[in-house]
C-alpha cells in the first residue's frame, strides 16, 4: 500500500474503524514509513484531545429547575383533563363548518333576492286599447315638455302606459269640471290665493271638495305625430 492510500485511511484507522486486509496493509506500511507514522500520531493526538473535551457547565440547580417545570406541566395536564374532559362527540372545527355555512348563506341570499318586491317589477305593458297610444314607446315617454323640463322626474320607474294615459284622461276630465263649474272654483285662484297653489275645489255628489293638484304629463296623439303637454292631476 502506498503512502497516499494509507493517509486516506489514517483518520479511520486511528479511530479503530478499519478491519480486515486493509488494517493489516496499513499496519505493515506504518512499520516501515516514518512520515506516515508521524501523520498517524497527529490523528491520535487529535482523537485523545477530542475525548478530553468537557461539557459546558450546567447550572447547579439544573435538575431542580427542570423538575419544577415538569411539575408545572403535570399540573397543567391534570387540570386540563379534570376541567376539560375529552368530549365524546368530535368538536366541530371551522374547516368542517365553513363550507356548510357558506352554502347556507348563498342559498339564503338567493332566496331573499328571488322573493324581494323589486324582482316582481312588471314589465311595462303598452295597452293597445288605450285611447290614442297604441304605438308609444319608452323613448317617447322620456321627452320633457319645453315649459317644464323637470317633468320627467315625476315619471316613476314602474309606470305603465295605461296608468299614464288614465291619469291624463282623468286630468282632462277634472280640468273640464273645474272650468265648467261656477263659483269659487272657476276663479283664477292661483293669482288670488298663491299660498293655496296646488289645490282646487271639485264638485262631487256630496258637494264641493278640496283636492290636491299637481302638474302631470299628459300624453296625447295628434294626427301624424305624438307629443306631450303639461297638465294637472287631482289626488
Amino acid at each position: 500500500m502506498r503512502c497516499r492510500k494509507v493517509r486516506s485511511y489514517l483518520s479511520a484507522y486511528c479511530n479503530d474503524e478499519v478491519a480486515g486486509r486493509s488494517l493489516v496493509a496499513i499496519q505493515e506500511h506504518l512499520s516501515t514509513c516514518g512520515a506516515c507514522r508521524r501523520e498517524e500520531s497527529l490523528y491520535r493526538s487529535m482523537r485523545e484531545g477530542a475525548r478530553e473535551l468537557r461539557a459546558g457547565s450546567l447550572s447547579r440547580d439544573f435538575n431542580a429547575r427542570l423538575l419544577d417545570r415538569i411539575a408545572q406541566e403535570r399540573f397543567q395536564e391534570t387540570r386540563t383533563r379534570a376541567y376539560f374532559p375529552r368530549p365524546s362527540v368530535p368538536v366541530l372545527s371551522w374547516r368542517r363548518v365553513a363550507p356548510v355555512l357558506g352554502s347556507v348563506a348563498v342559498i339564503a341570499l338567493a332566496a331573499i333576492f328571488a322573493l324581494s318586491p323589486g324582482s316582481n317589477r312588471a314589465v311595462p305593458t303598452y295597452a293597445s286599447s288605450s285611447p290614442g297610444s297604441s304605438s308609444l314607446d319608452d323613448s317617447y315617454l322620456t321627452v320633457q315638455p319645453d315649459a317644464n323640463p323637470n317633468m320627467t322626474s315625476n315619471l316613476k320607474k314602474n309606470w305603465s302606459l295605461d296608468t299614464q294615459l288614465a291619469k291624463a284622461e282623468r286630468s282632462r276630465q277634472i280640468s273640464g269640471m273645474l272650468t265648467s263649474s261656477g263659483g269659487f272654483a272657476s276663479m283664477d285662484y292661483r293669482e288670488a290665493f298663491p299660498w293655496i297653489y296646488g289645490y282646487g275645489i271639485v264638485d262631487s255628489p256630496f258637494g264641493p271638495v278640496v283636492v290636491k293638484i299637481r302638474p302631470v304629463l299628459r300624453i296625447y296623439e295628434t294626427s301624424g305625430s305624438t307629443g306631450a303637454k303639461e297638465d294637472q292631476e287631482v289626488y
Partner: protein
Amino acid sequence: MPKETEKDIDFSLMKAIQNGDMVAFNTMVDRYKDRLMNVIGRMLSSSEEAEDIVQETFVRVYQHRQSFNFQHCFSTWIYTIGLNLARNELRKRKKFKFYEISDMQGHETEFAVEAKIPSRLPQAIDSAIRDLPEKYRTAFLLRDVEEMPYEEVAKALGVPLGTVKSRVNRARLILRDKLQPRLEEHHALSKSTLLPVGLL
C-alpha cells in the same frame, strides 16, 4: 448473568418514566444532561441558550414519553430531539442577527480573538470545532466526542450512513489541517515529558 447494557438501562428507566416514576426521570436526566450539553453547547455559542435547549429537550422527552418506540435506542431519540431544537435555534439566529456590544466598538477585538490560539490542545480543538460548518460539526461531535456508532449518528441526524461517514472524515481532515502546528507541538511534548493530554 449477562451485564446490563446502556440500552437496557435506558429502556428500564423509560418504562418507569412511562409509569410516572419521577425518580427514574431524574436518573435519566443525570445520565444524559452532560452529554447533551457537550454537543448542544458546541452547536450554540451561548451556554445559557444551550442550557435552555437541554432543558427543553428533557421537557419534550417527558411530554412525549408515551410515544417512545422501544425498537430504537433512547440515546438516538433524545439526541434527535435536542439537535432539532438546536437547529431551530440556529435558524432563528439566521433570521435575526444578534450582535455583541463589543462588536459594535470595532473589529480590533475580533481580529485579536481570531489570532489567539489556545495554549492547551483540548481548548484548541474546541475552538476549531466551533469553526466547522454545522453539518460537519454535528457529525463529528456525535461520532468522535460522544463516540456514538455510525448507525445511531445516521438515525439521529436523519441522513444515510455513507453521508455520515463522509462528513466525519471531512471534519477530521479540516481539523487536522487547522490544528497541525498545535498537534505537532503536542506530539513533541508528549514524547519528551509523557504528560497526560489534559495537562498540556
